[in-house]
């Protein structure tokens, strides 16, 4: 996937655990884990807003675009 969710990096910077963040933004640990591991297909604006609020960051700090290797060769 081209869009990488940098949640693990932001959580490490803010020294916050997965359980703690899940509790603060009111979603389950398993859902937050799906986000963290990049298995999620989509993210709701409300979830993104809650994460940004709790981690005190911008959406751009969490999302990163990386060009696919296949599209590089084309």
């Amino acid at each position, binding site marked *: 996937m081209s869009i990488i969710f940098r949640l693990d990096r932001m959580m490490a910077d803010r020294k916050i655990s997965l359980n703690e963040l899940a509790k603060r933004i009111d979603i389950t640990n398993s859902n*937050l884990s*799906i*986000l963290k591991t990049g298995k*999620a*297909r989509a993210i709701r604006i409300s979830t993104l807003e809650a994460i940004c609020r709790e981690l005190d960051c911008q959406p751009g700090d969490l999302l990163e675009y990386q060009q696919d290797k296949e599209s590089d060769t084309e």
Partner: protein
Amino acid sequence: MKYLGKKSLSCFLSWFLHVVWFSVLAGFLFMMFFLCIVLFVEPVTDPSATGFNKVLYMVFQEVGSSNDQELYDFMKTHVALRLLAVSYLFVVLGLTLRIITKARLLFTNFKNNIVFSEDNVKILSKLSKLLIIFSIMTFSLTTFLLCVIILIMTGIFKSGASLQQENDLTI
């Protein structure tokens, strides 16, 4: 009326198909035992027979009193033809039990509120294939039409499962 979940129509159907599975198995095995005796064992005519011969005597008495001409005619056909008929019935029994098992699995999933999942798509797909074979073997047009409906339902469930997965992975 509830269709999915506990104490619903699916729950009842799951339980009912469980009972039907065992009933079909018991009924078919009894019928096959009876048929195998009639078709392949020499008739016992001695009323003073004991043990298993007594059972055979009772079976042949029952057949004799039924006046079933078709059965009498069939008893006189070649042994290979009789074997073929018995194997055909065994295949039909196997198919019937497999169809009931698949339907039971599907309703058990509905009972547990698992509706649009890949498992159900696989079950429906297998069920439709089994029903195609069953309809060909039993020359049943109704079963064939049912199978076509199930095939369409498989497509619907496939789309549903895809949407469900999309929804589950939207955080």
